[in-house]
């Protein structure tokens, strides 16, 4: 806790805690063509800040997080670029050094809480395991801490829950237990990979409120991976919109929602159902799907699905217009070029 408080800073005013630069992940299976899942992604996360990575399935957002965590399979892929965390490039650390960071400094929350918990050991054991591993506590010492932790993430009757197995908990409780495991050692960076996708809407709101509260309380930096712009609107300070392995637009939460520049961001915003729209009005989804082999090399990968397409889109790769705070990657952005 003391360490976490020490790193608490006013939003955006400090040095980045994690700075990802030109991250590239290429999957290559023998005999197949290489597939660029992540193609030059850069972003910064400062202490206490929540950064969203948004995009539809297959845009590379989960692969980005797994690459930063060093959790990609050992074979069949190459990771290039830098992910500097607290002065160290995580991508060059040895596996054992990386293991010491994971869970202690950087932790991750996964999408499906049931399958992400070990079905044959108790919740308490799974929480204490992390503390035993990183803080050198005995199980006896860790148990009261685990109970406090479960209480902190809003699990009622935490003492009884310690000896429960995952199947005895409801979906929301399981996600809370997973969050407790991730927070067990007060990590400075938390990566949440679609933490609410598998939950009911009411539970989603509770989990998001919990995450928000924990981030504010502890000064933990949060990377929020989601396809749900509602989650982004409620939680993130900065948003990166990914398409085909590249960041296509970045901005602060307010700026991005008020004045989206990239047609893809606009498409995502338009595909959210609105309660205040007149009855019978059709949703306006983004047509098509993320293509398998992306032609970023010589064109804009979004061009085939774009409503704003101009000649340059199919003959040149759009360059990044902007900086590490705001920007987009489009030849014909909405609202015209400034």
């Amino acid at each position, binding site marked *: 806790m003391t360490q976490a408080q020490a790193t608490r800073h006013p939003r955006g005013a400090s040095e980045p805690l994690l700075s990802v630069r030109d991250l590239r992940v290429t999957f290559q299976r023998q005999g197949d063509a290489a597939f660029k899942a992540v193609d030059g992604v850069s972003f910064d996360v400062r202490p206490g800040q929540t950064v969203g990575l948004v995009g539809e399935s297959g845009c590379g957002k989960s692969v980005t997080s797994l690459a930063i965590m060093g*959790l990609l399979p050992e074979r069949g892929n190459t990771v290039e670029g830098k992910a500097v965390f607290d002065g160290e490039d995580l991508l060059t650390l040895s596996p054992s050094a990386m293991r010491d960071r994971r869970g202690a400094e950087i932790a*991750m929350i996964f999408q499906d809480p049931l*399958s992400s918990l*070990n*079905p044959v050991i108790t919740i308490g054991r799974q929480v204490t395991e992390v503390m035993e591993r990183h803080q050198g506590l005995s199980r006896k010492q860790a148990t009261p801490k685990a109970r406090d932790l479960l209480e902190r993430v809003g699990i009622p009757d935490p003492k009884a829950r310690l000896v429960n197995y995952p199947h005895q908990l409801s979906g929301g409780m399981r996600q809370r237990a997973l969050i407790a495991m991730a927070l067990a050692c007060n990590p400075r960076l938390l990566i949440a990979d679609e933490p609410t996708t598998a939950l009911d809407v009411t539970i989603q709101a509770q989990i998001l409120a919990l995450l928000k509260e924990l981030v504010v309380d502890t000064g933990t930096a949060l990377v929020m991976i989601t396809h749900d712009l509602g989650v982004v609107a409620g939680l993130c300070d900065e948003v990166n919109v990914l398409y085909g392995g590249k960041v296509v637009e970045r901005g602060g939460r307010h700026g991005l929602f008020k004045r989206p520049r990239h047609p893809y961001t606009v498409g995502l915003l338009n595909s959210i159902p609105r309660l205040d729209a007149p009855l019978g009005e059709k949703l306006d989804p983004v047509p098509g799907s993320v293509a398998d082999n992306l032609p970023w090399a010589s064109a804009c990968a979004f061009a085939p699905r774009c409503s704003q397409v101009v000649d340059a889109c199919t003959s040149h790769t759009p360059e990044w217009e902007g900086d590490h705070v705001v920007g987009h990657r489009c030849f014909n952005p909405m609202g015209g070029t400034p």
Partner: protein
Amino acid sequence: MSEDRDGRTPTPPDGGRARRPSYGQVRRDRIDALATAGTVDDEPGVSLIRSAWKRLRRNPIFLLGAAITLAFIVLAIISPWIAPWDVTARPLLDQVRPQTNPVPGPEPGHLLGGDDRGRDLFSRLLVGSRQTLIVGVFATLFGLAGGITLGTVAGAIGGWVDSLVMRIVDVMLSVPSLLLAFTIASLARSPSQWTLIVAIAVIQVPIFARLLRGSMLAQRGSDHVLAARSLGVRPRAIVFRHMLPNSLGPVIVQATLSLAVAIIDAAALSFLGLGNPDQRQPEWGQMLGLAQKYISEAPHLAFYPAGCIIVVALGFTLMGESLREALDPKTRR
């Protein structure tokens, strides 16, 4: 790692003509199918074991199998105390006439009559269950221990270690198991029940190893193992706390089925004279072997031990099969 990882049966190279898969291939496929069955994958809120038990309790096949198994185990344990006659005593010796009546028939006090040496057949059958149980259980336990060790090594380390272990296992699987057991048992200088146990344990090892390795691989890619890795849990703890306990389900079910096979194989080897030759310790396969001499005059000498073997093996098989079905998410409702 290899082509069999995703359980595909290789298509015949000539395309058109369907080729029968080899003996080893058939066995490998069957084991791989078992490895994916019985892995934990459940509707939320209901424990796998509890829902399986709920269905088993009302399954007459399981109940029958369990009753036979239980009766067999209890009898095997208490038989020396409840057998009416000592297995070495020869109370019917005076009735044995080598020329006219080599095997005394039933009479009061001797339910099934005697054997060719005038010993009480019923008592010998009862006590024989003990050796059969010992051989079956120990052979399966040793096979299980060996298989779990090899399967864990292959599934946890992966890479060339996995390839090496699995090729050895494949070679063992491609030899018909009874033939392999026969070969191993005949290596022993003097046959005993331990020869049987070792020989049968060895033929069980590759089955358990392949089964466990298959479910370990499935666990390695599972979400909860990824979650444990994301928390920095050490590889050793991941293998023994997160992968192994979740992989054992199908192996334990297979062990129940293997007990039946072990009992039958033990009887077969014993019948062929590779078992314990000491007649003071009767064993069903051994009794079957001794009965050969009088098969035309007294077929019941062979009939009773053979029947016992069949019933007990059936009991274990019924129990094991219904366990497997109950734990297999694919067959549930």
